[in-house]
């Protein structure tokens, strides 16, 4: 188990949202 700072958690969530958007984009392109 690890304790992430609020800033790290914020950054992780931001990167996750960006990746989800990219995944949706790729699926729309059919790749």
């Amino acid at each position, binding site marked *: *188990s*690890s304790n*992430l700072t609020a800033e*790290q*958690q914020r*950054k*992780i969530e931001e*990167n*996750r949202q*960006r*990746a*989800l*958007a*990219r*995944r*949706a*984009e*790729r699926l729309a392109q059919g*790749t």
Partner: protein
Amino acid sequence: NNGLNPNQNQVLCLIKSCPEPQGISIQELKQRLSGMSMTIIRDVVDFLSNEGHIFSTIDEDHFRSTDQE
């Protein structure tokens, strides 16, 4: 078939199986995938990132899957 090759599937599977909030490190991936070179692992990680299957977390060497909470 999810369109990924065996190496890509193996790496993605390991990343998905890690329960840590910061995800799995590239060093740990290398340890678990002893038969895979670091060059291939980095290539696969780049591909999976570009496709939105995974994302970096606390730094550029830790990864999580977009499929897990």
